[in-house]
């Protein structure tokens, strides 16, 4: 297999045969993906807090109960552990559950069921009990929300054997990754960047999930001076940073990681082997964040090529703050550019 990335910026490709391209927000794209799988696979079920009549607090499940019935799309009582536990039992009875936990910070009460049960039932049963569960989790910050509504749990999930984890950064990929996650026979945590729910982009709903295998990253912008690696909402910020850098003649390659487990180590190494420098950017606190894993993978595979240590630009090691401090907590374009500068100026002591 080759670890190189197969897709340049999605927008740059022409529409595929049979393409149905519409302009939509990520929240609509996720809704469309749920419609696709509810239509195509009678075993799929959508449930969670307020996903029914309300259509979810972000309207991601808008109209699904109306269109697919209250048996396929239903509200649960307010208890996250039971939501995931129920998904495990449903999977054992042949269903393909797509539970939602309302917000990142409310996944914590479900961690036992996620780690000790969902992620392990297939292993524990020696393959007898598949767990094709897609756990949707509105994630990350940037919307000035109350406490527990702006957190990034990817490092926790990526560390759990038996889980797969992904996070889209734009509507097209949100559609594709969700269809792919639901079709995957393993449990997938699908992390939705809330801050990107609303921006509209063209989405080809005929785009197959199969054209990019699980675990593949994307180069959204090619460049030769350094590689920026990000996922979720930070991808957009990295693209902005790359714009600024370009004004100064610095060509940054931007990699959208997409799959946070498995991570596209070969793809990252290939990019960094060309650019010789890398900056990984995430919202979660720095220490023991997924940036450490990305940095380690890159360093292990491209040490000889690296001209400087991989830089990490991350949230600070503080609880996710309220409104006015949020922009000072999240990685800023300035911080990204400072890191780029440090890596460009690095001289081996």
């Amino acid at each position: 297999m080759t670890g190189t990335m197969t897709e340049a910026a999605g927008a740059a490709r022409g529409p595929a045969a049979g393409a149905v391209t519409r302009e939509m927000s990520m929240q609509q794209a996720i809704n469309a993906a749920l419609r696709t799988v509810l239509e195509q696979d009678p075993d799929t079920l959508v449930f969670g807090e307020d996903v029914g009549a309300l259509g979810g607090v972000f309207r991601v499940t808008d109209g699904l109960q109306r269109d697919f019935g209250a048996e396929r799309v239903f509200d649960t009582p307010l208890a996250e552990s039971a939501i995931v536990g129920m998904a495990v039992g449903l999977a054992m009875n042949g269903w393909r559950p797509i539970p939602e936990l309302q917000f990142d910070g409310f996944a914590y009460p479900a961690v036992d069921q996620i780690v000790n049960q969902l992620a392990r039932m297939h292993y524990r049963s020696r393959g007898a009990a598949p767990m094709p569960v897609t756990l949707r989790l509105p994630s990350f910050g940037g919307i000035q929300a109350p406490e527990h509504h702006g957190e990034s749990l990817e490092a926790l999930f990526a560390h759990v054997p038996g889980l797969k984890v992904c996070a889209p950064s734009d509507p097209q990929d949100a559609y594709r990754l969700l269809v792919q996650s639901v079709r995957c026979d393993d449990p997938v945590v699908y992390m939705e960047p809330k801050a990107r729910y609303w921006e509209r982009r063209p989405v080809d709903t005929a785009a197959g999930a199969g054209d990019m295998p699980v675990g593949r990253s994307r180069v959204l912008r090619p460049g030769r001076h350094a590689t920026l690696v990000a996922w979720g909402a930070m991808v957009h910020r990295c693209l902005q940073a790359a714009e600024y850098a370009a004004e100064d003649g610095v060509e940054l390659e931007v990699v959208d990681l997409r799959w946070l487990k498995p991570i596209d180590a070969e793809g990252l190494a290939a990019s960094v082997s060309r650019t010789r420098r890398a900056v990984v950017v995430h919202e979660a606190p720095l220490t023991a964040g997924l940036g450490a894993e990305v940095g380690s993978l890159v360093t292990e595979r491209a040490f000889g090529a690296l001209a400087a240590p991989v830089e990490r630009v991350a949230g600070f090691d503080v609880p996710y703050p309220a409104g006015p401090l949020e922009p000072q907590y999240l990685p800023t374009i300035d911080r990204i550019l400072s890191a780029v500068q440090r890596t460009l100026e690095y001289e081996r002591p």
Partner: protein
Amino acid sequence: MTTPSPTPAGPDPHPGFGPDLARRCYREMLTARRIDEEAIALQRQGVFPAYVSLRGQEAAQVAGAAALDAERDFAFPTYREMGVALALGVDMVGYMASHRALWHGGLYDPMASRFSSLNAVVGGPVPHAVGWAVGERLRGGTGCAMAYFGDGASSEGDIHEAMNFAAVYRAPVVFFCQNNRWALSVPNERQVAGGSVAARAQGYGMPGTAVDGNDAAAVHRATAQALERARAGQGPSLIEALTYRVEPHSTSDDTSRYRDAEEERAWRDRDPLTLLRARMEADGSGDAAFFEQAEQEARKRAEAVRDGVSTAPEPDGTDLFAHVFREPTEELARQQRVWYEEVRP
């Protein structure tokens, strides 16, 4: 759809709720109402990113909390207990600061106020109340803990664990459920199996009472009894105040998607302030002058809170780092330097 039950008639069933207490409750309920209205306005003006209204729950909150002893008891709120904060004398600008998103937990001092920081995890603070109460008994104190939660929260595992712990330890806790019939878009019928939160108490061998949560006197009496019991070492109890969330879940919510406007109207007609006022007019504990004065004071106070919270300074970026640890670490100091050099506005 649920409709309110009629106001009880006949002789006053709440003899302990005397004129002074009624007046105090009315004043504070009205103040809570006016602050609530100011808050909704502030959200519309973009000063608050969002707001969760307590409208309709003023009796459940104020009259219940009026039974607390602010010298020795301690309340553990969710995100909707503004009336409790008011009754306990919490600095309301500091409280409202949470809704302006200045600081998640609010800017008041929870320890001095005996009112824990606002808590957005549904069910999460309830075990804290139990721990606090166990600790109070261990040190021979006579304080009680009051644990607030909603009908939706009653589904969370933490509520069960906390009630079981409290009853096993006979801890002085009052579990105070405001059943406002809705947990965001989900009604009691699809949330609370069996239909009654109060009925859960029996399973733990503790008393559970459902009261009309819009009747200030009934709420006060039930709470006072539960506190008395707890203080006497007889252990925890559960109160379910039956009330209604007449506003949307929060200012970002749209109730037309899931509930009947008729139901809302019916409950608006059972406004706890109207009910209390009618009662006070009937028994003479409030005359026109009192109500007029209460209105003026409430408005004044609400405007002061509005002005205070609107003009409160935004927290400084150093606050990001200041409260993480009591014993700071070098790594955090290093990160603060990064913030200072690369982020500070």
